[in-house]
């Protein structure tokens, strides 16, 4: 192992470290420029590796002369030759060819990223910017080291790899500063990424061209003999073109048909051009034709179907989806991932409106609309949808500010949709928007989430109130019928008393009347009979003291005390 190989292996080691660090930093920052730079460093590893391999193989063996090319012409033969050449090529050529292809793919992918660039917020721009400036010092060290060894040992590979490291240093510096600029508020991330992508691309082309040319010229240390600038210049060199044409003439017999190519191209071009004079209006669209900017069919749009027009610069067709009902959100947008629309759960963003009684409410409104007048839609307003949104917002703000919160969420809600629709339509017509509101749907209106609980408590206590009232009615439903029953009982009792009284009286009096004796004789007899009967009944079993007044004062004293005592007992 000589000093050149040592130098190149050191360069490989340093580049590997740098590359890994750069990928790690992309993971943390998310900057496109850093990603591109990381890939670029990966190519550096490849380069350094190639230099190392070429230095080793140079020691070991001379490049084999390819097997003799057969003199017979023909397409198949040519392809076979190429195949044999590729098969016999030394390892480093194959490796570097593969690397060239890989780099081409990487550059194209990164370029796609550049085109569909989504602005990202770069994390830690200050720290990573400083680190990248540090990297540039690393690259500078590699550059110095490799050039020094290269010049002393006269190795073209090492020198050119050193130059490459110098370019790396510039890249790292660029990124470092772009990150610092980002910190200051200037975002040139995308631009820097583009520069690096172009750099990778040029390197890929360079590698591929160098591999092919140096192999065909059978050179040993081939890398970076031809710079990208040389390649670009050679494209414009007339001699090269003539050479290429001659090569084609020799190897490809169908060259003579080449003169028809312009004609075919012309036919294809004119076909494409005139095909623009056909246009299709879809089932849900209408069209407007403009001839030199002036609409042709005022008032009546072009209906669905296949139509003809003058080709491109003369006529232009504008298609509007007029029969599709579209919608916009006013206020908050409902987060579709939310399981249920509950007041106490966050389910959208926080656009607030004020109600007339100074309360805050968060509405979720969807406005459905259609394009009623295509011409007004196209020619009267630049941004009819922004207009629709602003006007809807204004109408809702003013409607909400007129009604109390309770009204808005309950009784007025249905009427609100109708009122808002009329008002918005009126404003839209006033400003010639050509938009027709189909319906306004208030999906939800709720108070701020933090106080939604107390709103629900109000409803709960309302329910409690209803419960109490119902309970009272329940009691009432018991007491009143009971009272009625009692009343009925009292009355019935009275009636029965009365009936009894009257009937008794009737009976008794009838009996009495029947008892009255009809004549004087019977009267006295009956009286005596009745008297005696009664007396018998009365005095039977009773204690009696019978005194004969003629016998004088009775001999016995009536002991009343004894009698009363007896009675008491």
């Amino acid at each position, binding site marked *: 192992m000589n000093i050149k190989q040592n130098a190149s292996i050191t360069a490989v080691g340093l580049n590997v470290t740098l590359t890994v660090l750069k990928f790690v930093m992309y993971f943390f920052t998310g900057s496109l420029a850093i990603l591109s730079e990381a890939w670029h460093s990966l190519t550096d590893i490849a380069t350094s590796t190639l230099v190392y391999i070429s230095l080793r193989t140079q020691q070991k063996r001379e490049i084999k002369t390819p097997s003799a090319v057969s003199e017979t012409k023909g397409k198949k033969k040519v392809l076979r030759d190429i195949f044999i050449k590729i098969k016999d090529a030394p390892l480093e050529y194959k490796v570097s060819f593969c690397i060239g292809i890989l780099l081409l793919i990487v550059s194209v992918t990164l370029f796609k990223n550049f085109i569909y660039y989504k602005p990202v917020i770069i994390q830690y721009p200050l720290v990573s910017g400083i680190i990248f400036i540090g990297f540039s010092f690393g690259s500078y060290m590699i550059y110095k080291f490799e050039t020094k060894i290269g010049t002393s040992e006269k190795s073209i590979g090492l020198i050119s790899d050193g130059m490459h490291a110098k370019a790396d240093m510039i890249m790292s510096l660029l990124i470092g500063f772009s990150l610092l600029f980002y910190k200051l508020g200037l975002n040139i991330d995308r631009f820097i990424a583009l520069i690096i992508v172009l750099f990778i691309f040029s390197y890929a082309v360079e590698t591929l061209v160098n591999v092919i040319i140096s192999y065909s010229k059978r050179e040993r240390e081939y890398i970076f003999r031809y710079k990208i600038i040389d390649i670009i210049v050679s494209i414009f060199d007339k001699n090269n073109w003539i050479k290429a044409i001659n090569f084609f003439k020799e190897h490809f017999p169908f060259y003579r048909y080449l003169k028809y190519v312009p004609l075919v191209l012309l036919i294809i071009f004119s076909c494409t051009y005139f095909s623009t004079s056909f246009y299709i209006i879809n089932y849900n669209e209408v069209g407007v034709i403009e001839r030199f900017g002036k609409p042709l069919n005022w008032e009546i749009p072009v209906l669905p179907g296949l139509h003809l027009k003058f080709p491109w610069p003369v006529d232009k067709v504008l298609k509007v989806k007029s029969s599709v009902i579209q919608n916009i959100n006013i206020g908050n947008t409902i987060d579709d991932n939310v399981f249920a629309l509950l007041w106490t759960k966050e389910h959208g963003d926080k656009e607030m*409106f004020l109600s007339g009684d100074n309360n805050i409410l968060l509405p979720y409104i969807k406005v459905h609309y259609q394009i009623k007048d295509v011409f007004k839609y196209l020619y009267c307003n*630049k941004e009819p949808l922004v207009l629709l949104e602003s006007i809807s*917002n204004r109408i809702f703000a003013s409607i909400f500010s007129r009604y109390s919160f309770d009204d808005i969420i309950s009784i007025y809600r249905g009427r609100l949709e109708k009122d808002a629709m009329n008002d918005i339509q009126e404003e839209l017509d006033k400003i010639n928007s050509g938009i027709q509101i189909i319906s306004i749907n208030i999906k939800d209106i709720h108070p701020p989430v933090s106080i939604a609980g107390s709103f629900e408590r*109000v409803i709960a206590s*309302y329910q409690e109130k209803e419960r109490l009232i119902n309970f009272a009615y329940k009691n009432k439903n018991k007491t009143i019928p009971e009272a009625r029953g009692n009343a009925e009982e009292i009355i019935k009792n009275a009636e029965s008393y*009365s009936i009894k009284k009257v009937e008794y009286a009737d009976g008794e009096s009838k009996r009495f009347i029947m008892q009255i004796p009809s004549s004087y004789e019977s*009267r006295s007899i009956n009286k005596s009979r009745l008297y005696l009967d009664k007396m018998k009944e009365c005095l039977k079993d009773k*204690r009696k003291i019978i005194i004969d007044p003629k016998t004088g004062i009775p001999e016995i004293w009536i002991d009343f005390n004894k009698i009363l005592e007896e009675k008491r007992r």
Partner: protein
Amino acid sequence: MKRNMLFVVCSIIIIVLISLSIFIVDEREFVIITQFGRVVRIIEKPGLYFKLPAFLENINRFDKRVEIFKTQPIQLLLRDKNPIILTSFVCYKISDPLTYFQSLTNKDVAIQRLSDMTISTLGSTLGEYTIENIINTDAVKIKLSEIEEKVISVCNQKAKSKYGIEIISFGIQRINYPTIVLESVYNRMQAERDKEAQRYRAEGMEEFTKIEATAAKEAAQIEAEAYKKAEIIKGEGDKKAIEIYTKAYSKDPKFYEFLKSLDVYNEILKEKTTLILSTESDLLKYLNYKEKDEK
């Protein structure tokens, strides 16, 4: 061959020149043609037009349609010192392309100037109104559209003559309170709700008691009425009975008295009664019976 080449080159140059001097004016735009900064023509109608090629005459295109932009939310003070955050939108269109071009040059500048103008006008107009005029359940007191119209008319005076712009519409699209005020609004809303909840609960008790009392009263009434009715019925019965008795007994009052007395004796002379009877009484007169008495 050389002649051919010349022909091709010449025709290419001519085509390029023509393509550089033809332009289309859209239905949606005004075009102002300037020649080294000097305004040469103003085109307001759509169609195909010609001009001197390339940099000799420049095309400046302006949108004819109504443009809309939103102002940023801005905190303003009302007459009653209430702070309020308003977001508004402005619809305008170019009424005088030349003035617009000279004074504002392009859309961005126009929007900036208009936004300055409308916000300051809105601020000074709001100074004359109170919060009552913006947020109120009494719709008559709300003066939002009046404020908007004032802003339009004030701004249009300047905008039309100085800027070549006509403001079509100005609307307040969002009314809000500053964060600190919001906090107290939250608290107030909560207190209000608590009050409401308490009221419902109290009302519930009130209704409950009312209903209970009414029910009790009704029950009492029903029973009392029934009692009254019962008494009347009884009285009637009594009365009828008395009448019947009177009618019957008056036929022979003596006999009634006799019968009744007998009944009464029977009633009052209970078991333990001790009677002292004289043999001279009518009942016992036959105890000392002698024939002579039979006369």
